[in-house]
């Protein structure tokens, strides 16, 4: 950790662009990559394969050098070394013997891209820097050098016992499994058994220390077969694991056919990490989705254990599990509930290492889970013996000591008080005060001090208040019962009180979290746009986390800071946020990536979609955030991301809807315009072409043609004007110029326009003499009236009268146009004012259906109303109602 911090600090000092580059690339890159050539036995060709690979790398221009290779004098292997740089070994002198070893410092100094270090499991000569060669290799990797090495299955610690069982031989040189687990690449060097046996027979295999093993018949066909199978299986699993955990780490979305769902239950016991590993192997084997849970049952848990739980959960998460903490008093019940609600098919538990009293009564948690599991499989894993529970840290003991001291003071206090009132009370009643003391100790200082107080109380009580005084001797045997009662009641009270206290504390914490979450989601749900969400985040985090935040949102390809961040955003911080956005995983303070930043950065993502990054600078001073807060933080981040996604989706849907409506409108417009513009042209072109070409045309027909052509041009002109008006309305270019006008002037002006079309009709204008002036935009209102009169003309036979009436009705001046035409179908009365709506009529009535929609827009702008209705006796009535203005009265 320290080392990593140091490294990141170096990064801080480098130029920002360099840092950005590093941040953008995988952080793992900084570490060298380990490639293991893995085999089931000596002689299968690991070194040969490794050297071949190095030759290929060199051919590709990669700088490779040999740190240590043992060719055992084999010609074919030595041939491969030709032309490859060998870093000179050093010689360690031990007990008079000189032993050649890899010169670690020389390799580090030489810094090749790839260093070849044979035999991973080798134990260094005493006096070397590291005890084991794998530690040398780890140092090389840490310095950024890639390493190629070899390993046999029997040297893997995890397979040590299996191999021992098969072959009967226990290997002394072992390598921890994690080295192999963390290897970046594994290549299996495999040789068929028969071939290997032949090579052995030919003496082509150097056996070294294994020469003795050969004698013990290590290399019999059965053994080799078993080892080969284990090797291949293990390698396959590791590779598979790596692929899967890589995919999950990168949040590459499935298909994840999670037929099986595994639940691993851990405790604060150190062996829990083994459970997690076992869970991972099983999950990989079943191709299962898996969960790791820790049940917090409110019992007191030391800092060190809490920390271990957190680390185990973190490890689980890194291995691809969904890791979480659940709260509940009944552990077994919580496990089963969680398993049921998540469709878990297999539960993995550790075998209990010891049993206590309550386990004998109720059965262990494992027993309870098995009993309640129903159709869920329960796997029980036996942890290795050497994983002992660690002793509590001295700091905790020190802290405890002061609590115990407090208990003593309390008991002394009660005793002094008892001494004062001793004369007035029976000694048995004094015992009650001691019980009170036990309760106080339990509430204030927890279990141990309260138990201690109970014991101390019995002794002090006996010593000072029970005859004979100042001895522990009891003369009256009934006090034995008093003591027993005092002790038992004290212990029970202590236990119950502590539990209640812990639960109360826990409940409060959980309630606070739940409230915070509830509030956040409530506000987020109400947020209408992104900026509202950003505001909510800024106001909310300070309250919940005692922290300052910065919100970055992805806008296109770039990541932009939003609003006012709560702490200064340097280039470095921005770079970390960028890394998070690209890698879709948390980084910064309190994480294992780029932890030198002042704030933690969590991705705002739902599934594989990333919307931004949340930077949080905690006031909390620890090295990392407590587990439950980390969970809460993640939940918060998810909530925020969901809210952003929702807003974006709504916006997208709205845009889509608009587009669709626009499309429909455009289609209607084009249909309408193409029809309505072309129709008059047909008549005009037809009439005129006939006149041009037909020399025998009668004068009467000529006249008819001309009339047709002229009328059609008038109609076309009206249509074009309507289109222009619509365009102006759409563009918002209409500005009302409101002035008081006489309705009579309006009607008179419009009728004048229709002098020709109205020449055969009786048009009656009835305007009440006391009609006040109406505030209107004269030109626009003239358009409205013209459109309506035009409709009346169009939709009624040429010889039927049209009436125009105007009078005051309520707070409006109504202008009515009444015709004796076809009327309007009831269903259409409402819709005729919609744009492009046209009443289904016999063919000869045309119009874009724009006229009335324009009318409605104009009248609406006047805060007036326009409607159509049926006229009794046939025909229709169109009414324009404009608000009566109080200011201007007809003069």
């Amino acid at each position, binding site marked *: 950790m320290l080392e990593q911090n140091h490294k990141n600090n170096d990064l801080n000092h480098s130029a920002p662009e360099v840092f950005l580059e590093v941040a953008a690339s995988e952080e793992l890159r900084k570490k060298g990559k380990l490639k293991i050539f893995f085999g089931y036995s000596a002689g299968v060709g690991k070194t040969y394969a490794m050297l071949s690979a190095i030759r290929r790398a060199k051919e590709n221009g990669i700088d490779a050098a040999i740190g240590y290779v043992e060719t055992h004098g084999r010609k074919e292997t030595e041939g491969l070394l030709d032309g490859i740089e060998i870093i000179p070994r050093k010689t360690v002198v031990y007990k008079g013997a000189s032993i050649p070893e890899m010169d670690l410092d020389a390799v580090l100094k030489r810094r090749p891209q790839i260093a070849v270090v044979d035999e991973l499991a080798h134990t260094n000569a005493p006096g070397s820097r590291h005890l084991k060669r794998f530690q040398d290799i780890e140092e090389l990797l840490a310095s950024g050098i890639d390493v190629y090495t070899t390993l046999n299955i029997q040297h893997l610690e995890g397979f040590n016992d299996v191999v021992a069982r098969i072959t009967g031989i226990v290997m002394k040189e072992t390598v921890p499994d994690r080295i192999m687990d963390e290897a970046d690449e594994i290549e299996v060097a495999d040789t068929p058994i028969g071939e290997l046996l032949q090579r052995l027979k030919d003496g082509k295999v150097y056996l070294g220390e294994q020469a003795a093993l050969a004698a013990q018949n290590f290399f019999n066909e059965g053994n080799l077969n078993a080892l080969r199978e284990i090797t291949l299986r293990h390698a396959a699993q590791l590779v598979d694991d790596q692929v899967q955990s890589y995919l999950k780490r990168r949040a590459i979305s499935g298909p994840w056919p999670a037929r099986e769902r595994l639940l691993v239950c851990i405790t604060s016991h150190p062996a829990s990490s083994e459970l997690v590993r076992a869970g991972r192997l099983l999950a990989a084997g079943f191709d299962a989705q898996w969960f790791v849970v820790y049940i917090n049952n409110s019992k007191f848990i030391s800092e060190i254990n809490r920390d271990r739980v957190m680390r185990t959960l973190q490890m689980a998460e890194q291995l691809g599990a969904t890791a979480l903490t659940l709260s509940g008093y009944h552990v077994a019940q919580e496990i089963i509930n969680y398993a049921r609600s998540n469709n878990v098919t297999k539960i993995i538990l550790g075998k209990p290492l010891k049993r206590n009293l309550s386990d004998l009564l109720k059965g262990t948690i494992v027993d309870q889970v098995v009993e309640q599991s129903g159709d869920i499989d329960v796997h029980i894993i036996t942890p290795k013996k050497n994983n002992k529970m660690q002793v509590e840290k001295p700091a905790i003991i020190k802290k405890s000591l002061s609590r115990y001291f407090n208990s003593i003071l309390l008991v002394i206090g009660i005793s002094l008080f008892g001494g004062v009132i001793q004369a007035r009370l029976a000694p048995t009643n004094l015992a009650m005060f001691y019980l009170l003391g036990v309760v106080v100790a339990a509430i204030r200082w927890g279990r141990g001090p309260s138990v201690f107080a109970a014991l101390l109380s019995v002794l002090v009580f006996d010593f000072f208040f029970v005859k004979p005084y100042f001895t522990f001797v009891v003369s009256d045997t009934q006090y034995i019962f008093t003591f027993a009662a005092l002790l038992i009641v004290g212990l029970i009270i202590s236990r119950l009180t502590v539990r209640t206290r812990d639960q109360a504390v826990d409940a409060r914490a959980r309630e606070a979290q739940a409230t915070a979450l509830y509030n956040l989601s409530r506000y987020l749900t109400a947020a209408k746009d992104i900026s509202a969400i950003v505001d909510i985040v800024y106001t909310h985090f300070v309250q919940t986390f005692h922290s300052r935040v910065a919100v970055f949102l992805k806008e296109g390809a770039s990541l932009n800071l939003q609003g006012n961040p709560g702490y200064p955003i340097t280039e470095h911080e921005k770079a970390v946020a960028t890394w998070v956005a690209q890698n879709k995983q948390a980084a910064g303070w309190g994480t294992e990536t780029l932890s030198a930043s002042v704030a933690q950065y969590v991705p705002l993502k739902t599934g594989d979609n990333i919307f931004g990054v949340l930077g949080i600078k905690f006031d909390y001073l620890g090295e990392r955030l407590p587990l439950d807060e980390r969970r809460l933080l993640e939940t918060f981040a998810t909530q925020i991301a969901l809210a952003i996604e929702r807003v974006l989706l709504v916006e997208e849907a709205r845009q889509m809807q608009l587009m669709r409506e626009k499309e429909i409108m455009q289609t209607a417009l084009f249909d309408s315009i193409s029809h309505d513009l072309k129709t008059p042209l047909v008549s005009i072109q037809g009439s005129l072409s006939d006149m041009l070409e037909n020399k025998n045309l009668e004068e009467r027909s000529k006249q008819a043609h001309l009339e047709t052509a002229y009328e059609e041009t008038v109609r076309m*002109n009206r249509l074009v004007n309507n289109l*222009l008006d619509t365009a102006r309305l759409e563009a918002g270019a209409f500005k009302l110029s409101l*002035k*008081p006008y006489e309705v009579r002037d309006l009607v*008179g*002006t419009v009728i*004048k326009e229709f002098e020709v079309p109205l020449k055969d009709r009786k048009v009656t*204008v009835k305007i009440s003499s006391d009609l006040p002036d109406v505030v209107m935009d004269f030109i626009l209102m*003239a358009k409205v009236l013209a459109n309506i009169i035009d409709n009346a003309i169009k939709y009624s036979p040429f010889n039927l009268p049209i009436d125009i009436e105007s009078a005051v009705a309520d707070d409006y001046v109504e202008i009515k146009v009444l015709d004796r035409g076809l009327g309007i179908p009831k269903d259409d009365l409402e819709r005729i004012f919609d744009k492009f709506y046209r009443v289904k009529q016999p063919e000869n009535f045309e119009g874009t259906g724009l006229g009335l929609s324009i009318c409605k827009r104009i009248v609406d702008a006047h805060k007036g109303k326009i409607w159509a209705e049926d006229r009794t006796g046939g025909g229709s009535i169109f009414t324009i109602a404009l608000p009566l203005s109080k200011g201007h009265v007809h003069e």
Partner: protein
Amino acid sequence: MNETGISSGVRILIVDDEKAIRRFLKTSLSSQGYEVAEAKNGTEALTALKSFRPDAVVLDLGLPDMDGVVVTKKIRELTQTPIVIVSVRDQETDKINALDAGADDYLTKPFSAPELFARLRAVMRRLARVQDDPVFNIDDLMVDLSKRLVKVKGTEIRLTPTEYDVLKVLVLNAGKVITHQQIIKQVWSKNQKDYEGIEHLLRVTVSNLRNKLEPDPSRPTYILTDAGVGYRLKFEA
């Protein structure tokens, strides 16, 4: 009326960038007996104004080299030759701008040929009137400007001084549209502090004039409203 006789020798300059429109105008106007010259932009128009010396100009607003309103102003700097604007611009502000720049009338395209002839006759007659006959006759209406006398069907009509002044402006400009502002300028002096109020007063005055002169005030035939622009007095039967 023998229109060919009236129009013979009268010169009209057509300014329009559209060939088809020039052709139609030339054909129509020539058949009326006018002598016609064409210009397809403002520069040509101003040149033709000097060389052709037209009696009236038919001017399009949307010219390629300069706006018709600018051409109008330039013509007005040189001469009082009547100008009739023909334009697709149908917004009242366009009309007012052109009229206030000195145009005598305004026709929105498309228009009918007889309408254009009538406007041309009106603007040219106004010029002639100045020294001419002070009596105006249309249908049943008679206005004698020299005697301040107004008669409908032979009966004298009593007008207030403002009504008479407005009617006088209309008569002097009979047949062409005259903007509100132009009327107000001539009737209510140049003090136009409360323009809105005076404009309203104008509308009331016109309404009263119609009540006194029109046979059916709800369907006026003498004093016509050009929506948003101004008024026009009927000029030909």
